[in-house]
């Protein structure tokens, strides 16, 4: 009964969707981790007021469904004058979402750096920026790296929801093909395999980056 050859005419649709998902993921993983790092630093070292603002942002995002956040940005904001394209709305929604989750993850890493490490850096004559980059962030990120990797993959998988606002991602491709040739099983099997492949690829890419960044650990 299964007939995968019915999917062949739609190869371009699938590849286009795959490419869109990859582009969105790469861009928002980068932006989201940036936001997360910034917010985590503020939560750990910022003033009391700024810490509260970040905490409110993190709680708001972590305690509401992603699709609601997305619909709010895409369908809600136009009523107050912010008309965003599906692509812009997606980038913003994914970045905000990953930003909130990664804030908590990275903050956990930062709070794990003992005070003695700061003091040691000061004794060595390092300024705040140097201390943060070399003495604090690197070991902090190393500790939470697996959790951060997983979170980025979760966001990539969550991007499937973007098809709801007509972003032509991988899930959109699957839905479209399925509505054209009614080969639901075949379309979604192929799509699931593509997501699986993407997730494995991401894990591999993260481990490669990790090996380079945390190379100082290795005995030379």
């Amino acid at each position: 009964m299964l007939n995968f050859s019915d999917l062949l005419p739609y190869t371009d649709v699938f590849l286009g969707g795959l490419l869109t998902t990859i582009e969105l993921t790469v861009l928002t993983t980068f932006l989201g981790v940036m936001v997360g790092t910034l917010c985590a630093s503020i939560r750990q070292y910022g003033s009391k007021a700024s810490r509260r603002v970040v905490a409110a942002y993190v709680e708001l995002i972590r305690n509401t469904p992603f699709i609601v956040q997305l619909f709010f940005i895409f369908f809600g904001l136009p009523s107050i004058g912010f008309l965003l394209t599906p692509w812009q709305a997606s980038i913003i929604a994914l970045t905000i979402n990953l930003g909130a989750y990664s804030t908590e993850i990275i903050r956990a890493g930062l709070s794990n750096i003992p005070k003695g490490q700061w003091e040691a850096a000061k004794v060595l004559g390092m300024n705040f920026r140097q201390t943060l980059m070399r003495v604090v962030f690197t070991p902090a990120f190393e500790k939470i790296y697996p959790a951060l990797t997983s979170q980025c993959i979760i966001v990539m998988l969550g991007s499937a929801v973007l098809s709801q606002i007509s972003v032509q991602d991988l899930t959109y491709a699957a839905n479209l093909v399925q509505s054209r040739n009614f080969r639901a099983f075949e379309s979604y099997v192929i799509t699931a395999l593509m997501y699986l492949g993407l997730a494995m690829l991401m894990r591999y890419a993260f481990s490669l980056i990790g090996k380079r960044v945390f190379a100082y650990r290795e005995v030379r």
Partner: protein
Amino acid sequence: MKALKKLLGKTLIATACVAAAMTATADVLSDIKSRDEIRIAVPQDFPPFGSVGADLKPQGIDVDMAHYIADQMGVDLKIVPVTSANRIPYLQTSKVDLVISSLGKNPERQKAIDFSTPYAPFFLGVFGEKSVSVGELQDLSGKTVGVTRGSVEDLELEKNAPTSVNIQRFEDNNTTLTAYLTGQVNLIATGNLVATEIAKRKPARAPEAKFMLKDSPCYIGMAKGEAALQSEVNAIIAKALAEGKLNDISMKWLKAPLPAGFGV
């Protein structure tokens, strides 16, 4: 021999009955006149064509049309509520004289019943803001059109629209509607009933019909071979069209005028 006679007698009676029944239905129009009542089947679960109003009376395009036809014929009206599944059987078994029930025409139905000329618009088309000027498919190139994925209008667009059209597909009619209402898209491909729904919800953004993708207007159905009734009904529809009654009904229930060239 006796038995044969009996059988023959029965057959004769049966034949006579059938013949009588046939003459009784041979001319529905004169039946209507002699009965001084026309029985018309209307939907009761399909607004804006036919539904039950707050006063528990049937209302809608089809109901208005039924009243108009009864008035024009000068007979009483008996409304018979039907569902879309049994509207044609009601006609075939002579339980009603006419079916005014948002009936579309297709070859299978044409084998079973006869149709009048169209009385109400029913079409898939591209709708949009008044400021957007498009008059045909080619004008869409470079523009963004919202549509519900997998719908007939989606397929029509994909098949016929120029490739430079940016088709934004949404999950269901409601999301497509929201996309238009919030201004995410300024053009949508949908049915004229959905466009009416938008006009009701947000009159300020009432979409204007730009052009049709697929036209399947509603016809009045009647039993096959009723030439007298058919020409009478067609004459009434032609009059309604000429004096603007059809347009009034369309404005009242569909919040839009009849499409250009309707019924011509």
